[in-house]
């Protein structure tokens, strides 16, 4: 379970990036946060990972307070970033093995590594290929393999589908569904309204650091998410029907 309590970040004592954010992601739930550039999505993830310190408020993972016990909290967190470049001169297997060890695994067999790489849809010939020859989609798959390998309770994804082709995006969502079924709490930030609508159990719309609206799965299915998003993010009002 992932939770934020009045989580706030102010840069240089003047720029409000995140304002008293309160949200909760249960185990086996996918929470998608939508927002324009600079809305505070990445700042929120950075605070959840203790990359930056919150100005006030706190965040918890499995009831562990992240700012107070960052190292303990990080054992329960896996992370997939937007641009997963990884170590370009390493093979997929070498990258995965390294991050698995960092994630706390003492020994990882090649079979286990290959199984995980296969699970995220990487072709077998790519296992021993250097990552610099990978497409963005392949690197993204490897990124999620790293998160899977860590077997953490909460998974944070920072705009993971940006730049993926439709097939890559669809495969990626399937992987998220699998993680959800395993009971992971998944927190994902994105601009991609359509994929958010497809996968999210709940959606939060973040505008200038404020959580303006939170939608449940039913509300997501009922409402015109695009219009709602544009309304909050850009201030657009839905166009009136010309025939009326």
């Amino acid at each position, binding site marked *: 379970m992932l939770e934020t309590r009045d989580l706030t970040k102010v840069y240089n004592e003047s720029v409000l990036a995140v304002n008293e954010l309160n949200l909760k992601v249960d185990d086996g739930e996918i929470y998608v946060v939508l927002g324009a550039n600079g809305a505070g999505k990445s700042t929120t993830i950075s605070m959840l*990972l203790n990359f*930056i310190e919150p100005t006030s408020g706190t965040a918890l993972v499995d009831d562990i307070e992240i700012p107070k016990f960052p190292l303990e909290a*990080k054992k329960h967190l896996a992370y997939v970033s937007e641009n997963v*470049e990884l170590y370009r*001169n390493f093979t997929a297997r070498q990258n995965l093995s390294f*991050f698995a060890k*960092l994630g706390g695994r003492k020994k990882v067999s090649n079979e286990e590594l290959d199984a995980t790489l296969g699970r995220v849809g990487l072709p077998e010939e790519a296992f021993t290929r250097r990552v610099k020859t990978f497409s963005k989609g392949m690197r993204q798959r490897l990124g999620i393999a*790293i998160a899977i390998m860590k077997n953490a309770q909460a998974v944070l994804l920072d705009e993971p589908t940006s730049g993926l082709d439709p097939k890559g995006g669809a495969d990626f969502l399937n992987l998220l569904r699998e993680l959800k079924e395993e009971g992971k709490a998944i927190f994902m930030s994105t601009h991609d309204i359509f994929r958010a609508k497809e996968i999210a159990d709940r959606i939060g719309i973040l505008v200038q650091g404020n959580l303006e609206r939170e939608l449940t799965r039913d509300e997501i299915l009922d409402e015109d998410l695009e219009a709602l998003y544009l309304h909050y993010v850009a201030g657009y009002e839905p166009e009136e029907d010309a025939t009326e």
Partner: protein
Amino acid sequence: MLMTLIQKEIMHHILSIRFVALLLMCLLLVPLTLHINYRNYLQNQVNYQESVKLSNAETEEKPPDSPHPNMEVSKLFLEPSPLSVFAKGLEESLPSYLGMTRNGVKQGSTALAEAPLTSALGNLDFLFIVSTVFSLLALLFTFDAVAGEREAGTLRITLANALPRDLFLWSKLIGGYIVFVVPFLVSFLLGLLLLVSQGFPLGEPDILLRVFGLTLISLLYIGVFFGIGTVISTYLDSSKTALIVAFTVWVLAVLISPRVGFLTAKLIAPTRGIQSVYMEKTAIRDNLNTEKEKVLGEKIIGTLGASINLDKETVKKVNKLREPIDAEYSQKFQEQVEKVDRDYQRERERQESVGETLSRITPTSSLIYLAMNLSETGKIKRNTYFQTGTRYYAQLEDEYFRNIVDDDFQTLAQFVTGKSEQKKITPAPEMADISLSETLRHSVVDLLLLCFLAMALTTIAFLKFFRLDI
């Protein structure tokens, strides 16, 4: 965890193109320059021995009775140091010998003067490779240590694990340093083996300790540049910017600052040229000789009358008259020449001291001073050389020059009485050995500076990295 990170770091470097560049530089440059410089040393040693032999033979043969004031009656030769294979230092810019003349110590030509084109291009020795090539490679190994990981997104993925930040940076420093230092040490060892196979006296305890010292300070210097690269990398987001900044820092630290220090010193504390000092001394001698002849002439006329018969008896009387005048003018000459020398020496020492201090703004200068001292081709060797020359001159002055009188009366007197008994000229003394403890005493400032820089830069990098918003 640290081991995992260090292993990754080592692997990361080994698979990169810069490691290939390092390997090539190490394996080609280090043994090759040691080999070439040892051959040069052997040649210089042969030249030195031949010159000493020839000079000693000339001195022993027939010392001139009344040599011209500019004539070199004996020479103190500069013996090449076997450790010059590592750092040529000042050896080639020092005069090959110090000639002893009645006017003072005259400097022989330098090796640089004999090969001006080579000197214009600079020395290619172990010190140059470490100070210039390896410093650049060290920056190439570290400029993207943090910035590169930030760009690749691996910093966030790595630190998303239960990993203290200091471990990450330590792994960067240790892993990178190991990958850098191992080929460096291996190539250096190969170079040493090559030298030993050619007869280099590495087994001598003093030389072995000095070579060990050279190795340690090279490692320390590389460590300083690892620190500089890491600081740049932690302060900058983009590895391209970090590379440009690192290269600029390298140009300033290695190529510009050491020279600027001495250029500034020339403006702050100017000195006269050595030739002008020598001419000043010649002028003093000429003036005093003219004055002495006038005084002596007046004295002789006053005592013996205007017209004298130059027989043995008269010469005896004249010699008696001239003795106190000779002593007085010899004393005057010594005092004036010593004053000129002292003033010139003071000017030079001040200029050098200012230049040396200013140049220490960069670690490259400290390394050069340290390496030259350890290789016995630096300031200590130069000072010992000139001090030995001065002492030798003082000895010759007492034993030989002081007794030479060459005014017109003496020439006539010698013509009448026949040549006086020839005195043998003492051969040039051996230069005193510079002990390792003395070398360390002179090098302690530079050693401390390098240690301080390495620690300070590492601390800055850590402090910045701890506060970094990832």
